[in-house]
Structure formats: structure tokens, C-alpha cells
């Protein structure tokens, strides 16, 4: 459900730190009919033009707070709200070149009633990165 809506075009950009491009970010919405606390997120996967990135390369930002993926497992009080995006920053020195990219995004949400496999949703979308 919601697959066509989970990867936002807005916000797709390279991320700078100390004047260096350290990676890029995407804004993503939950593919579920409710918001969840962050530990309920089982997995994220991102690929750009076929280059895959696992959670070890990601930082997760909600509001003004940023977490490693492992840290989100203990973020019992932090919410990924229904219909509201969180930001995934993928660490990739140099970032992405300006132009159109094919971006793949997968999320695995694990409510207790679905069993450990949880709900897996993914989408592939062409999006223009300007800078």
C-alpha cells in the first residue's frame, strides 16, 4: 500500500558538511496505515542507478534529531508519523552528480501482529537532482 507515495521528489539533494559533499538525502513516507515508533522500522534499502546502500550507510533524521540506524532501535519515543516524511541521509563521499537518477527505496515495517517478516514495500522512481 502507498508504494506510489513513499518516495518524495522534494528534498532530493546532496548533503554538505564542512564545505564537502558527504552524501545525499531522500524524504520518505511510511507504507502503512498508521505512524510508528522508530524501533518498529525493520530495514531500509536505497539504490541509485543500481548502486546499493544498506542501513550502515544511513543516518535517519526526524525533526531536529538524527540517529544512526542502530540507534533508532532504542528510540522508543520517537515517531515516524503517518503521512509525514522522515529524512534518510545516505553517506556517499562526493554525493550524486546533478541529473536524473533512478532511485530505488525499500522499507520493512514490523508491527508485532505481522510476524517477524513484517511488511515490505518498495518503489523505483526517476528523480532529478539539481545540486
Amino acid at each position, binding site marked *: *500500500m*502507498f*508504494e*506510489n*507515495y513513499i518516495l518524495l521528489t522534494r528534498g532530493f539533494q546532496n548533503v554538505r558538511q564542512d564545505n564537502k559533499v558527504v552524501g545525499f538525502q531522500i524524504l520518505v*513516507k511510511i507504507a502503512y*496505515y*498508521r*505512524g*510508528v*515508533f522508530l*524501533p*518498529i*522500522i*525493520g530495514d531500509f534499502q536505497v539504490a541509485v542507478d543500481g548502486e546499493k546502500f544498506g542501513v550502515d550507510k544511513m543516518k535517519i533524521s526526524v525533526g531536529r534529531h538524527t540517529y544512526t540506524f542502530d540507534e*533508532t*532501535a*532504542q528510540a*522508543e519515543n520517537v*515517531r515516524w508519523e*503517518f*503521512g509525514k516524511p522522515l529524512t534518510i541521509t545516505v553517506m556517499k563521499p562526493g554525493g550524486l552528480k546533478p541529473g536524473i537518477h533512478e532511485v530505488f527505496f525499500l522499507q520493512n*515495517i*514490523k*508491527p*508485532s*501482529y*505481522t*510476524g*517477524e517478516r*513484517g511488511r515490505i514495500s518498495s518503489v523505483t522512481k526517476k528523480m532529478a537532482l539539481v545540486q
Partner: protein
Amino acid sequence: MKLTRSEFLKTLGYASATIASGDALSAVTGNSATVIAEPSPAGQTSKPKSDIMLGVSLYSYQHAIYTGEMTLEDCLAELNSIGAQGLQIIDEITVPNFPNPSEAWVDHWYEMCDKYKLTPTNMNCFVDIWWGWRHKPMSLQEQVDTLTVRLKLAKRLGFTVVRPTSGAVSEPVGQIFEKIVPIAEDLNIKVTPELHSPIPLQTNGAFVGGILNVIQKTGTKHLGFTLDMGDLPLPFSKERLISVGELTPEIAAYVDNAKAKGTPVEEVQARVNTMNPKSGDRTYLSRVYNIRPVGAPMGAPPVAENDPKDIIPLLPYIYNIHGKFYRMNEDLVETTLNYEGAFKVLIEGGYKYSIDSEYEGQRSMQNQWCEPINEVEQVRRHHLMMRRLLGRA
């Protein structure tokens, strides 16, 4: 003294009154008939057959809420405009700063319930006992504490019923329900685990029997069931689906023939796409080829041998009904579930709580183009059907 509805609802919420939600509604209508408007369809002359209250779960509008097309107030105004009285929510969709909304938001909530003449019925919550399998699972006490937080939130918002979901629906009933009874009694909230497909409704089933045992053991009036109408599917039948306009006979015949000849699914999908298919045609193809369904659902797989008469022994314990539905056609027929059979039993059995529309057809229309999603229209048709079944339209 005449209370406003919001004051009255707050009284219900904060005091440990012993009246049940159905009685509470009668009290409101009886004492201050000007405050709440009974739906009064034109041409109604006879006394309604039943005290059943009709409402809506905001789950029904999840797509519009998710995409930002409808705000909470938009949803509540729509409920008012179709004469819905019961208001049901998923806490983790609706409540900001969950589970601790600000006092200002709670005040606003009551003001809106007052303005739109709505009575909170069932708050649906989740106790994620496994914490996504990335965190230490909840102990039994943590499960009870988590559910208690949800019950207190429900109380703050004026709900009288809470539907908790924790482990898998097919798992035996956990100890959490036994532990929650005294807390539910203290708060005067009815805790109602959901009879959801594919749970067997027979009283000797693990789920139903487990809850009934706790009710008997404790003698409580604060544990029972939310019945989901999806647990009463009509059988999957090509002839019936054609008769209700879900399935195009030519496409069904082509798909059956292709399957018999062993034609690859991709080829069949491509061909069907050229045949001006309805969403039901796509679902039929998915069913015949046993692939992940797209398009409108056509009733749950026949795993539960449930019959409307199975509701009868459970009626004393059913405190809310999810009016689950997938598809209302232009003849105002729900094409997948046994509404007619269920309503007959509910009316004859004297069910007196709320039936809240719970549209779920949008889910299968979000991945692939079928036809525009119109949750608002579907809920309106569902209310027309329910009114007809109750002799109110």
C-alpha cells in the same frame, strides 16, 4: 442544567460512570434532544427496527489523510454531513504527539465532537510487543503498562471502547487481557480484541474461546470483542462477481481459458490491459494465477468457515463493529462480504452499539492504476446500504 455535548462527553470520560456507550447515547438523546440530531431521512414513517448507531472509522479516509487532501476537521465535517454519529479512530493516525496530545488539542477534539455531533466510539491501538524485533521484547508487565497508557488516552478523548492489537491474530490469547481487566474496569473502558479475518467465530476457537474464558473467570463487563465485518466473507464465486458487476464476463472467460492453456501470466496481464478492464477483472486474474492481488478485493480467501449465525452467542460481548468493506457498487451492494446475513442477526439479536464504516478498498488501488480512489464516496454508499438494511432509508 443543560450540558453541551462536549461537557457531557467529558463527564463520561472522566467520571467512572457505569453506563455503556449505547445507553450513554440514549441518555444524550433523551435529556437534550436539541443537542444531538438523529438522522432523519426523508420519508421515514415507522419506528427504526433497531437502536444500532451508525458511525465511521477515520481509517476509511486514510489515503486522503496521508496525502494531505483531508484534515481531521475535514473528516469530521464529512461525518456530520452524512449523519454519522459514531467516531472511530486509529490512535496512531489521528493523535498528535502520540500518546500524549496537548491539553489544547484535546480541548479542540471535544469542540469538534460537539460541533459535528459525534460520539467517540472505539479507539484502535497497537501494543507492539516485539518492538520490531530490534529491541528487547516487552515483558508481560510492559505490555500491560503500554496498553494502560492507551486506555488512559482513550479516556481523555471520550472513547468508551478500545480495540488493542498485539501479537498475530492467529496466536492464542495472551495473558495481557486477564491483567488488563481490573484497569479497564477502573477506567470504565471496554477492551475489545478484534474478531478479524481469518479468526474462526465459533466459541470453541482458540481466540474466541480464550477471551470468553477470561470473561467468565473474572465476571467482567469490560472485556469483549470488536467484530470486523471482514470476518464474514461471501464465498469467492465467478458467477456472483459477474452478477454484481465486478467482473467482465469476456475477460473472465479469456483468463480461465488462458490459465487452462498455460499461458504465462505476463502475457495474460498485457492482453487484459487492452480489454478495458475494471479493477475487479485485475483481481480475478490475480486470483486465478495465484499472484499478489491488484485491483479491488473480492472477499477474503475462504479460510474461516464463518456464518452470521456464529455471531449469536457472541452478541452479549460485542461492543463495537468495524463495518469493514472493500467495494460498494452503484447498486449500493457491498460485493465481498455478507452484510445482509450479518445485519439480520444483529437486528434480531438486539445489538445496540455502533457499526462504524471501515473502508479498506483503497489499499489495493495505491500500487497500480485501477480507477480513482474515492474514499468519501465509498463511505457514503456504505452508509446508504446500512440505512437500508436497518429500514432507515
